[in-house]
């Protein structure tokens, strides 16, 4: 199974860098994410843009088996849509793969049930359908419909049935790459479609709309194609590393899985930042020094 990372620099420069305790810790996380996962999945692939390749490969010296700068195609897209970089990476896949967020560390190989699954993700999420949730699928679909925009039938079907399932995609992948490319293409098309721009604008900025097009959309696609018989229906087995969010956050469960995800505000936690730095300095001293040299060279 191929291991894949993506890095679209425009959202990072715009405001995503603020998610991290410091730029150094962002880079250290890249080192640890790659080095822990490559022990299990040595066929590594970075999908980024030219600036990202200069930073991670030329600057930091990360050693991927393959590097693509196809995210240069996103240079005119609004940086609010950070999930586009991931969706483009998913759409590039033609072999079984696992996409790993750069704040995820695989201390252990993934269970075989994930490695052989049609589609898999970190953990399922269930959210309330009222305004208290970050997810607002009905608002998104209504906004696009209100301006005569393009709405994937999977989304409309799912919203009509008040589906409230999503999949947390700290890791995401599978062997049914034709289906995954279809799902990724829907998300990309819905964001980029000219007829949808007024609809998205009417919703105002909302980070969760990235989660909608990535994490809600995958469940909408799976549930829709399970119900509506077509070429995808016979192979839509979905697996998760954790059976629920509660287990994901349980230290014993994450220890058994050998899985760390510095999700959300954890990237700004000073204690974790210090642990991250100690770990990289101890386990990958050459990479650590390369990181310091790179930071000095760009300061």
């Amino acid at each position: 199974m191929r291991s894949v990372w993506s890095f679209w620099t425009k959202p990072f420069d715009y405001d995503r860098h603020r998610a991290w305790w410091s730029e150094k810790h962002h880079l250290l996380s890249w080192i640890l994410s790659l080095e822990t996962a490559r022990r299990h999945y040595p066929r590594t692939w970075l999908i980024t843009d030219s600036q990202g390749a200069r930073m991670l490969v030329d600057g930091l010296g990360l050693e991927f088996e393959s590097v693509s700068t196809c995210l240069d195609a996103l240079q005119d897209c609004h940086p609010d849509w950070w999930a586009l970089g991931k969706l483009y990476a998913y759409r590039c896949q033609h072999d079984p793969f696992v996409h790993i967020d750069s704040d995820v560390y695989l201390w252990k190989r993934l269970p075989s049930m994930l490695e052989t699954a049609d589609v898999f993700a970190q953990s399922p999420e269930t959210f309330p359908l009222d305004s208290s949730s970050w997810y607002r699928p009905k608002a998104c679909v209504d906004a696009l419909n209100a301006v005569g925009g393009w709405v994937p039938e999977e989304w409309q079907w799912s919203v009509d049935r008040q589906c409230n399932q999503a999949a947390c995609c700290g890791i995401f992948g599978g062997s049914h790459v034709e289906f995954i490319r279809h799902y990724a293409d829907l998300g990309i098309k819905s964001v980029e479609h000219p007829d949808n721009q007024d609809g998205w604008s009417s919703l105002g900025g909302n980070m969760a709309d990235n989660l909608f097009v990535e994490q809600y959309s995958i469940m909408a696609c799976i549930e829709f194609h399970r119900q509506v018989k077509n070429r995808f229906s016979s192979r839509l087995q979905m697996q998760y590393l954790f059976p629920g969010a509660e287990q994901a956050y349980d230290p014993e469960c994450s220890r058994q899985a050998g899985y760390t995800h510095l999700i959300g505000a954890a990237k700004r936690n000073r204690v974790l930042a210090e642990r991250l730095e100690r770990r990289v300095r101890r386990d990958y001293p050459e990479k650590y020094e390369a990181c310091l040299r790179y930071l000095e060279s760009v300061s």
Partner: protein
Amino acid sequence: MLKRIEHEISSDVALDRCVVSSIEPGDTRVGTSTVVTIYGRFLADAVDVTFPRERVSTTVLDAEEDRIRVRLNINPDSMTGRHDFQILTLRGVVKSDEFGVYFHVRSSGSGSREEEDKEDDYGVWGDMGIGGDLL
């Protein structure tokens, strides 16, 4: 704002319900043990003080009408940032966040004030992420 708080406290006093007004000192660093004093009203029958967030243990040293002295042990891997706490009395449980009173756990480093503020802004429940203890 001040009037609203005064009104709430007045109501609580009328019901002989615990009131929490402050905790001093208001912060400490991870991996330390410290004695704090919680000030308020109707605290004499307090039997325990607990911190819902992980890895802060407590021992009540003594309790009087207007104060409780508590020893706090902050584990080295305790979560940094703002912690609320609860006071268990013979008449029920009182939560400090009802009164806007919190205790702050800071990291062991000697970070700048700016860094400390950043830590407080983001040091919220859940900030250990998933499997953060494996790092």
